[in-house]
C-alpha cells in the first residue's frame, strides 16, 4: 500500500493547527499558576520601579525614568526568548516531549512559531504592565509623535528577536549542556550592554555602537528606535536605519534558523542524541 502525499494545503493546515495549539498550551500553562503570573509580571516591575526612583533621587530628568520603563518593557522579551524559546527543545527533550514532536508530521518550525506567539503575547501583557506603571505610578513623560511607527518598530523587533530565539533553540539543544547556564550567560551581559536599565539618551554610559555590537541582538536596535520615537517624539525619519537593520536581521536569521533546525535533527538522528534516556 502506497500512501498519497499530503497536499500542500493539507500540510499547511496541519502546521498552522500545530502552531496554534502550541501557542495555546503556552498561554494556558503559564497563566494557570498564580505564582508564575506574579513572578512574571510582578517581580520585574519591582526592579524597574527601583531604577526609576533611583534616577529621580539623583536628580536626573524625568525622561531618564521613561527610558528605563521602555528598557524594562523590552528586556522582558529578551528574557522570554532566552528562557522559553532558546531552551525550549532542551526542556522538551528532558521531559520526553521532543520525541513526540519529532514523530509527528509537523515542521519543527511551526512548533517553535507557536511557542514564539504564545511567549510574545504573554510578555506583551507584562510589558504593558510596566508601561502602565510608568505612566500612572511614576508619571514618567512619554512624547509620542508617531504611534504607528512605534507599533511597526515594536513588531519588527519581536519578529527579529523570536527568529533569533528559533536559531538558538537548535544550538541550545545539542550544545547547551546545561541550558540553565547558557541562558544565564546570555542574560546578564545583554542586560548591561543593551543599556536597557540606563537612561541612555541622556547619559550614554554605553555608546550605541558598542551596545549593538556587544549584545548583537535585535532588541538593542529596537529599544533605541522606540526610545527615540516615544521619548524624544521623533518621527519615522529618525529610525529608518533601525527599521532596515531589523528587517535585515530577520532575513538573515530566518534561513539560518531553518538550517540549524534541520542540522540539529539529522545530527541527533545520526548520533542518537534526540533523547536523553533510552530504554
Amino acid at each position: 500500500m502506497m500512501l498519497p502525499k499530503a497536499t500542500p494545503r493539507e500540510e499547511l493546515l496541519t502546521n498552522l493547527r500545530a502552531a496554534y495549539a502550541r501557542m495555546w498550551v503556552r498561554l494556558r500553562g503559564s497563566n494557570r499558576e498564580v505564582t508564575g503570573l506574579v513572578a512574571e509580571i510582578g517581580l520585574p516591575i519591582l526592579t524597574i520601579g527601583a531604577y526609576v526612583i533611583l534616577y529621580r533621587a539623583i536628580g536626573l530628568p524625568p525622561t531618564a525614568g521613561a527610558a528605563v520603563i521602555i528598557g524594562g518593557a523590552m528586556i522582558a522579551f529578551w528574557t522570554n526568548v532566552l528562557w522559553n524559546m532558546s531552551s525550549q527543545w532542551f526542556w522538551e527533550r528532558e521531559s520526553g516531549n521532543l520525541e513526540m514532536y519529532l514523530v509527528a508530521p509537523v515542521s519543527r518550525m511551526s512548533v517553535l512559531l507557536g511557542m514564539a506567539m504564545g511567549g510574545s503575547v504573554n510578555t506583551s501583557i507584562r510589558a504593558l504592565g510596566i508601561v502602565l506603571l510608568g505612566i500612572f505610578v511614576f508619571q514618567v513623560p512619554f512624547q509620542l509623535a508617531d504611534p504607528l511607527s512605534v507599533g511597526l518598530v515594536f513588531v519588527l523587533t519581536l519578529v527579529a528577536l523570536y527568529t533569533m530565539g528559533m536559531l538558538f533553540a537548535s544550538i541550545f539543544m545539542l550544545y547547551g549542556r546545561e541550558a540553565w547556564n547558557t541562558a544565564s550567560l546570555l542574560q546578564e551581559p545583554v542586560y548591561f550592554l543593551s543599556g536597557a536599565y540606563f537612561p541612555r539618551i541622556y547619559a550614554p554610559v554605553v555608546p550605541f555602537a558598542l551596545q549593538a555590537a556587544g549584545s548583537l541582538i535585535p532588541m538593542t536596535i529596537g529599544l533605541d528606535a522606540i526610545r527615540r520615537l516615544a521619548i524624544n517624539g521623533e518621527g519615522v525619519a529618525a529610525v529608518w536605519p533601525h527599521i532596515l537593520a531589523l528587517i535585515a536581521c530577520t532575513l538573515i536569521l530566518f534561513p539560518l534558523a531553518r538550517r540549524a533546525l534541520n542540522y540539529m535533527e539529522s545530527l541527533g538522528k545520526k548520533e542518537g542524541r534526540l533523547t536523553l534516556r533510552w530504554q
Partner: protein
Amino acid sequence: MKRDLSIETKSLRRLFKGIPGKGDVVALDQVDLEVHDDEIFGLLGPNGAGKTTLIKILCTLLLPTEGQALIKGMDVVKRASQIRRIINLVSGGETPGYGILSVKENLWFFSQLYGLPRDFAKDRISKLVDQLELQDYLNTRMSKLSTGYKQRLNLARGFVNDPAVLFLDEPTLGLDVLSARHLRTLVKDWIRTGGKTVLLTTHYMAEADQMCDRVGIINRGKVLACDTPQRLKTKVTGGATWKIEITPSLSELESVKSIPGVIGLSTTDNIETGVTTLKLVLEEESIMSDLLSKIRENGSKVLNLGKSEPTLEDVYISLVGTGME
C-alpha cells in the same frame, strides 16, 4: 509481494559510539524482519538487546547505520514525513505531555500535531477517553495522575491519529494487572478494525504469548528466532523442558550451566519457603543424571522433579541462555 508488508527491514545495522577506547556498540546487526498487515508482532529480548533502537529507526527518530527499513514500502530515511502521518509511538515509562494541562487538554494538543479538525478531534478524544477509562480524570492535571493513569493517557495519545502502524515499547510497564489486561484487549480489538499493524516490545512472556501473532527474539542486536509463539515452543525447546525444585539454593550456578547439553537455565527463589525452582531446557533426557549429581555435589536436596509444558519463557531461555530476572 511487498504489498501487504507493513514493516520490513533489510540487513539493518545500527552502531552507537561506545565508551572511548572500547569501540562501537552494535545495537542492531543484520536485522531482517517482515511484519504484515493486521499483525501484532512482539519483540522479546534482554535489556540492551536493541529493541528500542529498532523501534526508533522505524519511527524515523534514528538513522540506520547500514541497511534499509521500510514502513508500508516507504523508506524511513527518504520518506520520513510521509511515514510520520501514519505511525505513532508509545513508550512505557515515559510521560510526554504538559503536567500543568489536564488530560483532555493534553490529548487535544497532541491531536493538533496531526492537524485533526476541531470537531473530529473532539469525537475521537472522547472515544479514546472512554476506551481507556479516563472519564473521571478528564479535567485532572497530568501532573496529578498516578503512574498507571499517566500511562493510559500516553496510550490514548498513541491512538490519537488512528495510526496504521503503532509502535508500543513496553506499553504495560507500570500498569496493574487489570489495567494491563484491559490494554491488551484494547490493542487486540483495535487491530481487528482492519488495516492496522502493531509492533510491541515487552519483558512479560505471558503477555507476548497472549497478544502476539508472531514474536521475534532478539539478543545483542541479532534476531535469533522469529515465528508464532506456538511453533517456537515446539521448534526450539523440542519438548524437553524440566522443572526441578531444590533446597537450599545452588551456590554455584555456573557449574550447572556448564554441563554439556544444558541449553537454558533459569532460577526463581522463594524466599519464604527457601525453595528454589530451576527451569531447564535440555538437549537430551540422559543429561538429567549428570545434572542431579551436580546438584547433590552442591549440597542441595531435590524436592520435586518433573517435565513441564514448554512456555514462551522456555523458548526465550533456551535462546538467550539465562532467565530474565
